[in-house]
């Protein structure tokens, strides 16, 4: 699964996700990626989210919407909201990760697996950064 979140110079957020799902998935099975509020979500002023992992758990826990609600209603910063959401998913048996971005363009990466292919760039840090392993 691949995904992106962005803040533009007018202060608008957006999110996108694309996937083939799981190897050996049952035909007809749909994961969280195309479900708005689960694998993909964006709301100006709060956050944008794209998730990757065992989709059924991200659907049950409304992962994308949950991150943004944690920001809006719990007043958590984006890192705490992303971390607590992925831990919540882990607590019900789900594995994976997500990327999130707050209204100021601060990115957060949260995983409960060993690694996640990821990267970031911004007007403040125009040199592209990439990472794969959990300790990077």
């Amino acid at each position: 699964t691949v995904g992106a979140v962005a803040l533009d110079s007018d202060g608008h957020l957006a999110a996108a996700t694309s996937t083939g799902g799981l190897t050996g998935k049952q035909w007809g099975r749909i994961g969280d990626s195309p479900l708005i509020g689960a694998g993909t979500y964006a709301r100006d002023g709060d956050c944008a989210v794209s998730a990757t992992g065992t989709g059924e758990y991200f659907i049950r826990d409304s992962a994308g919407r949950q991150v943004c609600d944690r920001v809006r209603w719990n007043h958590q910063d984006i890192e705490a909201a992303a971390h607590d959401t992925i831990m919540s998913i882990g607590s019900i048996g789900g594995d994976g990760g997500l990327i999130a971005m707050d209204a100021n363009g601060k990115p957060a990466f949260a995983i409960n697996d060993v690694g996640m292919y990821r990267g970031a760039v911004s007007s403040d840090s125009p040199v592209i950064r990439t990472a794969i392993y959990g300790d990077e």
Partner: protein
Amino acid sequence: QKHWSLAIHGGAGVIDRGDLTPAKDAAYRAGLAEALAAGQAVLDTGGTALDAVEATLKPLEDNPLFNAGKGAAIAADGNVYLDAAIMDGGTMKAGAVAALTRTKNPILAARAVMDKTHHVFLAGEGADAFAKSQGLAQVDPSYFHTPEREQMLVDWKKDHQAMINPTHMYG
């Protein structure tokens, strides 16, 4: 210059340092960097976040290393079914597609659902037909298959054959 920001993921899992050769490690990082550069080009010239996330995902869908578009995971029946979604935080508009089998870039189809219909989510043959009607590139389903993903399905079947064929349930 006003502030902008972009972040991406290319999938998660049990990725240890010993799992990837230096060449594979470099190839994944190059793929991520190419995608980020595509989104950066949009945002750096005043483009929208919506256009940036779309531009970022297209090269990842075209890169066979990642599980989306070409190189996507293969389902139990041997076919590739592709899903994608996009959402605009400013307008709360969204578009999504599922179970595409012929549309080369699912993220473009999701964007078209958002921009060109009053729906949010189209699936299956209707979604492919809609994408085609919008002029989006269509490919033979074999385009999405790669040897690596074929092997992953073979490996998966070794572990799950008993579930597929009940006559093997007891060994």
